[in-house]
């Protein structure tokens, strides 16, 4: 996705004097989730979730609100208990251990910074509870203040801090307890867009420095795709797909994932295999389109849903020579939405409207509304997301 | 968890204990007196406190009923000395609230006026009570506003004084006044006589502003009321010196209910010795005279009469047609019913 990290220069926030990593690097642990189910009344929040999160991984739970991702996170934290199933930290079953006894800490969506304590006391909260020597606490607090770039702010009250600063306090407050797993429950959602991007990169950097496991809950695909080692896409209490950002974007497992991650054109139709083994998708509206079928299970006559990302489509004012690996359709431009470095085109092909995104190039031929155009894409860019 | 619970219970208990100590501190060397309003001058109490180096805790009531209800409801556990009227002495004896009085411990037993003591039927031989004062409710008139009036209970029939008069809010006193006016006994159970009395009171009711046993004295002094039915001391102690000359008090010539208020020691009293000391102190002739001068009512203690300097508002002789209220027993229901019909 070419749309990320364009507004700010990401390196401007990263490259500063690094914190002494050896002081704070900790050991992460793996998280195992076995057959977890949870009902609130008659409502099934989670059904039979299984998940393995590796040591030191930056793992995201991504899904629309109400998909159960936060509930799952709260179970790992120990705030909620599953109805069935178990949670493991490094192969130790922690399902019945209270939150204050798990080596897991949480960063909350709404910061949950204690408003009656100074920045210093907020960060020191966990250590003070453990009755650790004051000098050590002080040293630790300053280390973590530096980690989250709040040097010199330790005497302030939370009401004097900005949202981003509060969230930094919350992060330091969680990390100072040296958890094996850090849980982040939509930590950036209350911040404005610019700040969100900055802090996300910092989080990634912190993760790299201290090396513990991060479990990050979000409904924002940009965030998840940008920093995660792996992502689990959830919907209605189930996991739809687990994979790296690229796998998920390029090879969505189903129509929901395809629609949820980025934008897509979904083409529905039935498969017909011609006598010379050409495979064609006969759509109701766009006519017949040549596609590639790699899955032997898909038989002629099966109904298919195919995903085609808007940026994979080329829009041309004149008819191109179509290669064997490509497919081409003709259409008319209905609407153009200009947004700086790129434009979005809505092109009508027979009855169907296709959504196309094109980055502007120098000297490109200008396409106007109402123009007749040709759409061209590689067949391999079409993903079958559903079939029956 | 358990620790917190225990801590909390301890805190709660401590707080409760704190409250307890507040109340239980006052055990010794304190005499708890429950008396009518204006019945003993503050100075006498102070003198008693200094003479015996004790503290007196002094609370007041405005009617026998109020006092009795309070004692019945649980206040009886705290007081030592109470001043009920005769009928209530009898009630309190029969409900076992009183401690018998040891006559040998009372020095002034023979100083009481036999004219009065002979009338005492509520406690023959004074086994449970010792008389404090004798008197009767009467009528006070403000002569500044009322130049001419007849000295009789019929003054309440004067429509010219409508809304300027009060009757006591006390069933026995008001019905008794009417019964005597009609020539009957204040202790009658005769339904016909009571019905007649009721009609008479209803006639008076049209002219009075309220039934009041509490603030009639203050109201009279402030000029709110011109004619009030009540105890003279309650009125006169409220008056400015300038007003005393223009105030006249009389006992209706046909009589009314009279009372002998006695000192009684409650059964649960923890300071009986102090209570005896107090009774004896009150009846020291000079002390008693001081009280009588303050109240301006006749002395029951014959020895004390020698020291009296102020002429009372009325004399023993004015009470000749008055009758002592007796406990009505079950008959109180009849009175209650009639009184309710008048009052509500």
């Amino acid at each position, binding site marked *: 996705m070419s749309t990320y990290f364009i507004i700010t220069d990401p390196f401007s926030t990263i490259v500063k004097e690094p914190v002494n990593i050896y002081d704070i690097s900790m050991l992460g642990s793996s998280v195992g989730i076995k057959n977890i189910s949870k009902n609130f009344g008659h409502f099934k929040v989670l059904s039979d979730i299984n998940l393995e999160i590796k040591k030191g991984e930056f793992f995201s739970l991504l899904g629309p609100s109400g998909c159960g991702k936060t509930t799952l996170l709260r179970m790992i934290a120990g705030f909620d208990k599953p109805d069935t199933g178990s949670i493991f930290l490094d192969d130790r079953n922690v399902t019945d251990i209270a939150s204050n006894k798990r080596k897991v800490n949480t960063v909350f969506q709404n910061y949950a910074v204690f408003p009656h304590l100074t920045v210093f006391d907020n960060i020191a909260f966990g250590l003070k509870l453990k009755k650790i020597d004051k000098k050590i606490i002080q040293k630790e607090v300053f280390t973590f203040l530096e980690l989250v770039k709040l040097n010199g702010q330790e005497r302030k009250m939370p009401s004097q801090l900005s949202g981003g600063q509060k969230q930094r306090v919350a992060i330091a407050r969680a990390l100072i307890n040296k958890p094996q797993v850090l849980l982040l429950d939509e930590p950036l959602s209350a911040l404005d867009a610019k700040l969100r991007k900055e802090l996300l990169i910092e989080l990634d950097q912190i993760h790299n420095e201290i090396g513990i496991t991060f479990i990050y809950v979000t409904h924002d695909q940009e965030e998840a795709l940008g920093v995660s080692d792996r992502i689990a896409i959830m919907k209605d209490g189930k996991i739809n797909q687990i994979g790296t950002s690229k796998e998920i974007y390029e090879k969505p497992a189903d129509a929901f994932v395809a629609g949820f991650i980025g934008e897509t054109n979904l083409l529905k139709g039935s498969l017909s295999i011609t006598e010379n083994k050409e495979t064609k998708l006969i759509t109701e509206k766009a006519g017949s389109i040549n596609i590639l079928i790699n899955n032997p299970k898909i038989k002629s006559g099966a109904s298919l849903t195919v995903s085609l990302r808007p940026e994979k489509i080329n829009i041309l004012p004149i008819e191109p020579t179509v290669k064997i690996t490509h497919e081409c359709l003709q259409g008319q431009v209905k609407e153009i939405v200009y947004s700086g470095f790129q434009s979005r085109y809505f092109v009508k092909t027979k009855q169907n409207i296709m959504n196309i995104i094109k980055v502007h190039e120098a000297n490109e031929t200008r396409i106007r509304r109402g123009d007749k155009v040709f759409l061209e894409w590689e067949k391999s860019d079409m993903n079958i997301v559903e079939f029956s | 968890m358990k620790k917190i619970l225990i801590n909390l219970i301890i805190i709660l208990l401590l*707080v409760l204990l704190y409250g307890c100590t507040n109340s239980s501190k006052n055990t010794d060397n304190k005499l708890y007196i429950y008396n009518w309003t204006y019945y003993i001058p503050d100075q006498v109490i102070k003198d008693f406190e200094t003479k015996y180096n004790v503290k007196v805790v002094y609370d007041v009531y405005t009617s026998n009923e109020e006092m009795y209800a309070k004692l019945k409801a*649980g206040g009886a556990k705290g007081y030592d000395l109470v001043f009920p009227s005769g009928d209530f002495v009898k009630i309190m004896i029969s409900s076992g609230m009183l401690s018998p009085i040891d006559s040998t411990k009372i020095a002034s037993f023979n100083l009481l006026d036999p004219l009065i003591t002979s009338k005492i039927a509520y406690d023959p031989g004074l086994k449970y009570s010792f008389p404090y004062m004798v008197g009767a409710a009467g009528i006070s008139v403000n002569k500044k506003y009322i130049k001419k009036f007849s000295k009789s209970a019929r003054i309440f029939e004067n429509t010219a004084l409508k809304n300027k008069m009060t009757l006591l809010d006390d069933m026995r006193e008001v019905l008794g006044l009417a019964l005597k006016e009609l020539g009957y006994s204040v202790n009658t159970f005769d339904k016909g006589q009571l019905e007649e009395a009721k009609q008479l009171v209803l006639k008076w009711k049209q002219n009075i502003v309220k039934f009041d046993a509490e603030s009639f004295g203050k109201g009279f002094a402030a000029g709110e009321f011109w004619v009030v039915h009540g105890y003279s001391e309650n009125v006169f102690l409220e008056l400015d010196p300038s007003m005393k000359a223009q105030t006249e008090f009389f006992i209706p010539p046909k009589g009314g209910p009279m009372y002998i208020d006695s000192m009684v020691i409650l059964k649960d009293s923890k300071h009986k010795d102090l209570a005896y000391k107090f009774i004896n102190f009150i009846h020291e002739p000079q002390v008693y005279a001081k009280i009588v001068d303050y109240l301006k009512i006749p002395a029951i203690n014959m020895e004390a009469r020698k020291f009296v300097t102020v002429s009372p508002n009325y004399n023993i002789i004015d009470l000749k047609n008055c009758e002592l209220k007796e406990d009505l027993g079950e008959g109180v229901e009849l009175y209650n019913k009639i009184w309710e019909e008048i009052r509500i």
Partner: protein
Amino acid sequence: MNHTKRGIFTTTMVILTLLFFYLPMAVLLLYSFNSSKSMVITGFSLKWYNELFTNSPFLWKAVSNSLIIAVSSAFSAVLIGTLGAIGLRWYSFKLKNLFQIISMLPLLLPEIILGVALLIFFSAFSFPQNLFTVYLSHITFNIPFVLLIVMARLEEFDSTLLEAARDLGAREIDVLMKILIPLTMPAIIAALLMSFTLSLEDFVITFFISGPGSTTLPIYIYSMIRFGVSPVINALSVLIVLATIVLSLFLSKFSKYIINH
């Protein structure tokens, strides 16, 4: 046109109300400096103030009784009520709504009912009536106010603060002492002041359940209104109003929690 008319109506009502509120207080102030015992104005004098301070031992005894009761019952009510409010706010259980209504009921019942009920209750169990029963009764009617004020504050704050604390290793006692109580403190202080004032002011309940030696200031004032020989009461009233103003100024800081119940 229409607008100004309505404006005049509400403005008039406000002025009338304020006059209505303050006329009696002005009259008390006037009479407290009157040299005569009656209500006819004869001249300026401070003698009633003098008498109040030098010659009213029973009154000051009543004041001290009132203060003892007000302080002790306010603290006890706040202790019980704050814990109760935390319980009602953060935990759910069967019949919670019913329980909540019952806890609030003493606030809504006419005072005389609570007075009579407590009187009969104490008498049924032959509980001696004294300053201690007054203390118990005052706690009873103060608790619902504490609940209201503290719960209003608890409603405002975010449950994740508690989770965050537990997550950082806090035990329940730490959550209570380090998070809940400090954060509720303004409301706790408001509740304390409110209870203190209500207790100082209560007449009806105290009147019914008072026993030997438990004359509080309102009971004493009541007897002064009915009988009692001097306009000291005017001077006393003025001082009470002044004390009220001072207390209210102090309270205005916390009034947010008191008004918004």
